[in-house]
Structures are given as C-alpha cells and as structure tokens.
C-alpha cells in the first residue's frame, strides 16, 4: 500500500466506526428495560443494623434460634403422613385429613386451615378428584375411611405461596410495552444470500424485464461506442487510392 492509500483506508475505517448507528428502536427498548421494576436498584438495608452493638445482638439472636431449632429437630418424632378424606365424594373444599403413624400419635394435635381452591398452585394442594397433588407427600390411595371421625389428629398441608419473585417478573414481562424486536443476526447462509443480493441496478432490472433488455443493450452499446470515433464512409476515390491489403498467402 502506498502512504496515500494507507491514509485513505485508515480514515475511512475510523470514520465508519465513528458514525455507526444503533438499530431502530434501540432507545425505546432501553427505556423500557430501565423502566422495569427488576432494573431498579436494590433497597439498601438499614444502616442501623450495621452498627457493631447491633451486629453482636443480631448474631446472638440468630445463634439462639439455630440452637432451639436443632434441639427441636432432635427431640421431635418423625411424622409419616397419609392423606385421607372423610367421605368418598369429598370435593376440593373438604378439609384434608392426614393420618399420623404410631410414632406421631401422641404428638400435640395441630389443625390448619384448608387451602381455598383458588389458591391452589400446580406444585401442591388438592386436585379436583380429591387426591393430593403435592409432590412432597407421597399419598396413598384414598380409601373409604369408615372411621374417619376417629382419626385423632389432622394435619393439613399448608398452601404454597401463590406468587413469588419469578411470578412477579413474569407478570411484569407480560405487561411490558410491545416494541419491535431487534433484528436477529444472520446465519452464514443468509450472509451469502445478502452478498449475492441484487441492488436494483439497471442491468438487474433489464434481466428481469424482457421488454427493457433490448433498450438496455442499445444504451450499453452506444455508451461503448462513444469512446471511439464514428466510422467514416469512404468515397470511391479514397477507396481506389487505398492500397490493397497485403496478402499473406503465397501466390502459386
């Protein structure tokens, strides 16, 4: 490359880099993303919590709670539960009864409210057939309990949280403003097609339209001929004075 060419290429490349523009609607997409609640800065915890005395107090409370939880887990009997229903035709509104095993028969009774049908999620709860859908408890078959009233203790499965942070994010995404999606990157085949694409030049149009082909060829021919002088018509005198072309073939 000559120095002039080098300067030219360098300037052209830098100019192209400096004038690149983002895709259409980029600013709108960016605004929408920043307006989403997930993009908001996380709330800072209270600074009072970080004072040394408060830290010591908090850690001691946490340690105490952990100790109590560990002690309770060691002394508490294991509960194996079975979901039973008082009647065969019990609907989803009927309370779920859980029969404890022998090991848990003497544990203190706990009664929990039945979850409403509207609050049931896919992860657990009572299905329309009266069977428990909860994956955490392996349900036995709902046998017709003749003495269901004699079941001493009933422990109902607490309903799972109906909404979570993921659900909130999904709802926010659902209601996000609709904006044109950015163009997807081309595949290698599409790049080749893009390189082979015709730009709508005159010869492209002439190839596609037969009625324009002859006119285009005539125009091209005229453009080609304009580089040459027009052919002169020779007069008879000039024709006679012109020497005959030398013959290369040997005379017999």
């Amino acid at each position, binding site marked *: 490359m000559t120095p002039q060419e080098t300067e030219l290429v360098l300037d*052209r490349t830098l100019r192209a880099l400096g004038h*690149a523009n983002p895709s259409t609607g980029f600013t709108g997409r960016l605004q929408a993303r920043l307006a989403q609640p997930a993009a908001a800065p996380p709330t800072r915890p209270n600074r009072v919590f970080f004072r040394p005395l408060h830290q010591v107090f908090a850690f001691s409370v946490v340690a105490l709670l952990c100790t109590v939880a560990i002690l309770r887990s060691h002394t508490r009997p294991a509960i194996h539960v079975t979901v039973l229903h008082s009647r065969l035709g019990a609907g989803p509104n009927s309370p779920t009864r859980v029969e404890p095993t022998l090991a848990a028969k003497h544990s203190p009774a706990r009664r929990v409210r039945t979850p409403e049908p509207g609050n049931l999620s896919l992860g657990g709860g009572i299905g329309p057939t009266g069977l428990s859908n909860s994956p955490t408890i392996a349900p036995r078959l709902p046998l017709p309990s003749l003495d269901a009233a004699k079941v001493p203790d009933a422990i109902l499965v607490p309903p799972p949280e109906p909404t979570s942070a993921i659900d909130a994010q999904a709802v926010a995404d659902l209601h996000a403003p609709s904006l044109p999606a950015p163009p997807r990157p081309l595949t290698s085949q599409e790049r080749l097609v893009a*390189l082979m694409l015709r730009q709508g030049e005159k010869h492209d149009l002439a190839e596609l339209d037969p009625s324009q082909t002859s006119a285009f060829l005539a125009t091209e021919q005229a453009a080609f001929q304009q580089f040459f002088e027009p052919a002169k018509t020779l007069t008879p005198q000039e024709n006679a004075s012109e020497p005959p072309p030398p013959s290369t073939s040997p005379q017999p």
Partner: protein
Amino acid sequence: MGSLPSVLVEGSRNVLEELILPLPRSTPASAAAEVDLPALVDTYATTLFRVAHSLLRNRAEAEDAVQDTFLRVLQHQRNLPAVRELRPWLIRITWNLALDRRRRKIPDQADDLFLHSLVAPNAPADQVLEDAQGSRLVLAAMDRLPKAERQALLLSALDELPISEIAQIMQKSESAVRALLFRARTRLRERLQTDNPRPKGVKS
C-alpha cells in the same frame, strides 16, 4: 443479561469512585430525583453505542454493553448529581464493560457483515470488496496496537469527543493523548505498508 464478573464490578466501582466527587453530608435526598434517566438515555445512547461498537465490532453486543452501562447508572442514581462530567464518566463505564465483553468473545470478530457495514452501501461490488479488505487490514493492525494507543485512536474517531474529553476519559493530559494518537497512526501506517506491500507492476 447475565451477572457481571466480580473483577469487572470492582473495576467499575473504582471508576465510579474516581469520577464521582465525594458527596457532602448535606446533600439533599431530592437531588437524586433531578437526574432524568430517560433524558440521559436519549442524549448519550448513540455515543455510547459507537464507543462499544468500535471495540466489540458487533451490533448486538454493543447494544447489550450500552444497556449494562445504564443499568449500572441506575444503581448509582443517588450519586449522579455529584458527577462532574457525565459523558466521560459514561464512556468510561461503557469502555470497561465492552472490554470485559470482548475478553469473553472469540478473538477474530471481524466478520464479513461487519466489514461490509463499514463501507459505502451503494458502491460497486468490486469497490465494496476492496474497501472491506482494506478495513479488515486496518482492524487487524489496530488490534496489535498497545491498549492506550488503540483507545485513543478509537475514541478520536468519534466526532463529538474533543481531545480534552478523551484525556479525561483516559486520565491523561491532552498532550499525552495527542502523542498517543500520533504514535498510533504512525505505527498503523508503517504496519500497513510493510505487511501489505503493493505487488510489482501495479500502479497506484
């Protein structure tokens, strides 16, 4: 958008701390509300895109880098009124984020589509090929420049950035930036001439 590596987070935090004035105790809380983030996006998104695009050489990656920049700004929204020069601050964050993205990418990023986006769209096909080849050589030579020279050269390509702002972004004096630019161009010119000699018999 994935979480950013801790190295980058630390680096960006340093950048933020360097460029933000220490906030006085009496700064009113309502001062943060004066900064209009949508207006910032409208004003600086294109410039930041050009900065990231010159480094990443990929449109989608550059747009992601700009979005990361504004998310970072959103997290430091309280400190925005204390920023002395907003544009160098934003460009510096974008540059660091783009550098981090570039490290995670394949080294050879100059694909044909990017090269064709650098040349005139309506030029004849042979001219497009020739220009794209020239741009490829320039970008390859640019990748071998020292970091500071490359940064000065790419930032100088943005028309809206004067030398004083480039010096602010790079934390150097204006004369140092000019020297970097001179050295970068000289080095590029020499490399392009020595690595790509014109074949004998071809006139310029």
